[in-house]
């Protein structure tokens, strides 16, 4: 077994490892993107609830006998 063969195989392993790391990073990036989208949707949903709740309180205030 020559030194050159050894280095070639080592190089090939490193190259494959790099490609696998790149693939993994893209997979994780997509997961982060999707999780973030879900959080944004949830935040929007919560904002709607909070705004509606505020309107509810206003309605309550208007009906409250506060000018007595």
């Amino acid at each position, binding site marked *: 077994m020559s030194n050159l063969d050894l280095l070639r195989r080592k190089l090939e392993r490193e190259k494959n490892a*790099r*490609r696998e*790391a*790149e693939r993994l*990073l*893209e997979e994780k*990036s*997509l997961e982060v*993107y999707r999780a973030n989208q879900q959080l944004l949707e949830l935040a929007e949903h919560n904002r709607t609830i909070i705004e509606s709740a505020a309107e509810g309180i206003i309605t309550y205030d208007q009906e409250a006998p506060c000018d007595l």
Partner: protein
Amino acid sequence: MKGIVFTELIGMIEATLGDEVADRVICGANTATDGAYTSVGTYDYQELISLVEQLARETGQLEAALVQSFGEYLFQRFLAMFPQFFDGVDSSISFLPTIEDRVHVEVRKLYPDAELPTFECNLENDGTLVLEYQSKRPFADLAEGLIQASIRHFQDDVSLVRHNLGDQDGTQARFELAPTSNQPIDSVASACQT
């Protein structure tokens, strides 16, 4: 510029001209990264220009022709690496409009800061697809190579005409894909309705 363009350029040089030429090109280009690229990184596009300049010196070919050849190679690589983008398309006229609407949408999910070129497309009444390339970088030659390879891949009966626009510096160009045979316009009518 996205790292995949760099890793693929070096891959092309290694595959077609050998490791020694690739090594000379990388050493000669004398770039900040020394040719160590990953597909998920982002690098200065000037490095790509330096690499192409070296490749031109090495091969005696014109830079524009080399970049076009690289575009053709890149199309084949995209076909192999991202087959999902070629599902449900059977011609350049149906495929090219999806670059903006499907491909770049996916790229932005992974790389929100990516500064991608735009490919604005319009389907004329006579069935000609007009595609306007605009970029911050001068790679209309790369776009042309990709389009040429797409035409060849789908075996389209179209003629391709390119008009350089703006400052004529390769950052802006209009590509016209005109059908050369009398094919029914219906078959391509849905291509650009997005």
